[in-house]
């Protein structure tokens, strides 16, 4: 389970102007081939500022497993975010490979992430920079075994966890 608090680094990041000096497109190029803007019209794409986009790029890249949620892993502020955290805990995701961002702490992130992911609801899960889905997708992947398979392939689980489970 998660014991480590992962505070929002987004706020801290925005306090450092140097973080935004690199052009946004250069940073975005380092992301996966998945294109977060694919479903957006040019008008919508313009709503999110370069600064917000860059900050979210950094957030998404901050750990192999990244969850945008309402509240913190210890005290989720929404049942869907709680369910997501519980599933990650049951799966045995390594806290050192995990970061959570509380969208309630930052209105810009809260609105920005919806547009960034072309996904109107929270929570949102990213693994290795790729959008995986929201709570319903997480639940169904968890039940169907796809989530365990993906986490294993991405090597983001606590080591020995799989064996420990087998012994039970």
């Amino acid at each position, binding site marked *: 389970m998660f014991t480590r608090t992962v505070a929002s680094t987004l706020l801290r990041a925005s306090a450092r102007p140097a973080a935004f000096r690199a052009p946004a497109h250069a940073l975005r190029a380092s992301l996966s081939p998945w294109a977060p803007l694919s479903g957006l019209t040019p008008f919508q794409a313009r709503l999110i500022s370069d600064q917000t986009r860059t900050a979210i790029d950094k957030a998404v890249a901050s750990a192999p497993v990244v969850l945008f949620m309402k509240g913190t892993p210890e005290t989720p502020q929404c049942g869907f975010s709680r369910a997501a955290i519980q599933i990650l805990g049951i799966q045995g995701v390594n806290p050192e490979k995990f970061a959570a961002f509380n969208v309630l702490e930052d209105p810009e992130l809260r609105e920005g992430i919806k547009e960034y992911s072309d*996904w*109107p609801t929270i929570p949102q899960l990213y693994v290795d920079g790729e959008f995986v889905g929201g709570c319903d997708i997480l639940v169904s992947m968890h039940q169907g075994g796809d989530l365990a398979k993906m986490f294993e392939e991405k090597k983001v689980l606590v080591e020995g966890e799989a064996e420990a489970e087998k012994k039970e």
Partner: protein
Amino acid sequence: MNSNTPVEDTIRAKITAAFNPQTLEIYNDSHLHSHHKAMASSTSKETHFRLVITSDAFDSKMQPARHRMVYALLRDEMALEGGIHALQLRTLTPSEEERQQKKKDDEAKAKAEAKALRAEARAAQEAEAET
């Protein structure tokens, strides 16, 4: 006469028109969430919905793409202040639904068989005890 469930009606109309669904179940879970802090200023009785949609339109599409199709369709209803606050989705293709139904049936059957076996074993034990 005005409908008491305008949002639900809109959801049904839009999804039926866009996806021609084989199955469409709409659950209004708003009453379960009326105490939430986020709902304090809302007077709407139609804020939280859970949908089960089975449609050919989802064929060869990954789950996130299917959900995005539904979200895009209901974009206005979700963006509206006091509109849809939460939308749980289960999006299946007809063959997936069939597979899941079969799995469910098989599980129920296996459970029933196990129960029958246990009853049989118990009966055998009791018969043995009597002799």
